[in-house]
């Protein structure tokens, strides 16, 4: 079945340094959609960005990600971490037409320190 792997459970960064959270996936669907959700403490997880287009950069709120189907990756990046970016980040996969189940990874906790 579909699966999403986020190898880093915790990433700790100093404010101002670049962010990169890794996400790889496995799916049988050639038109799968990949998502990043962010979960701040005491709030609901919410969509950060999504993509299904190979090699196209997607950006939102200072974060960006590029889907690379050749390597089954969808890494989340930001040029400069802010204290307010501290949160839990989930990578997710949906197979596309006819398959509406969203499969999430284990999540990566990003901790930004001053």
């Amino acid at each position, binding site marked *: 079945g579909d699966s999403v792997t986020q190898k880093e459970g915790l990433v700790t960064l100093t404010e101002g340094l670049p962010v990169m959270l890794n996400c790889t996936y496995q799916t049988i669907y050639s038109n799968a959609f990949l998502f990043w959700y962010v979960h701040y403490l005491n709030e609901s997880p919410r969509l950060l960005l*999504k993509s299904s287009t190979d090699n196209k950069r997607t950006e939102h709120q200072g974060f960006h990600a590029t889907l690379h189907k050749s390597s089954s990756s969808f890494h989340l990046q930001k040029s400069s971490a802010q204290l307010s970016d501290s949160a839990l980040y*989930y990578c997710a996969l949906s197979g596309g037409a006819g398959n509406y189940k969203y499969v999430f990874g284990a999540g990566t906790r990003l901790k930004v320190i001053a």
Partner: protein
Amino acid sequence: NAGVIQTPRHKVTGKGQEATLWCEPISGHSAVFWYRQTIVQGLEFLTYFRNQAPIDDSGMPKERFSAQMPNQSHSTLKIQSTQPQDSAVYLCASSLYRVATEVFFGKGTRLTVV
């Protein structure tokens, strides 16, 4: 729009007791999802409904977990004979039934089995 509403926010049950978790999806959303959030597994898919009909319950532990959606305005997740390993945050989410649409989460119910 109050978003997805989950009640209660916290629930403590004794081992062997039953727990019922409630979810009110966003009005107009035809898909309702249940996930279990743990540190180890991340967001683990349990089940989902489309227009109140169960579509995929592949993530549900078969023996003690059940989910229902008696009408379009609420869904319940029932856990019988709760065990300590059931302790987790249970998240309900809803969306329009469209490819790659955003899934909106509630704030979750934290279940603690003592």
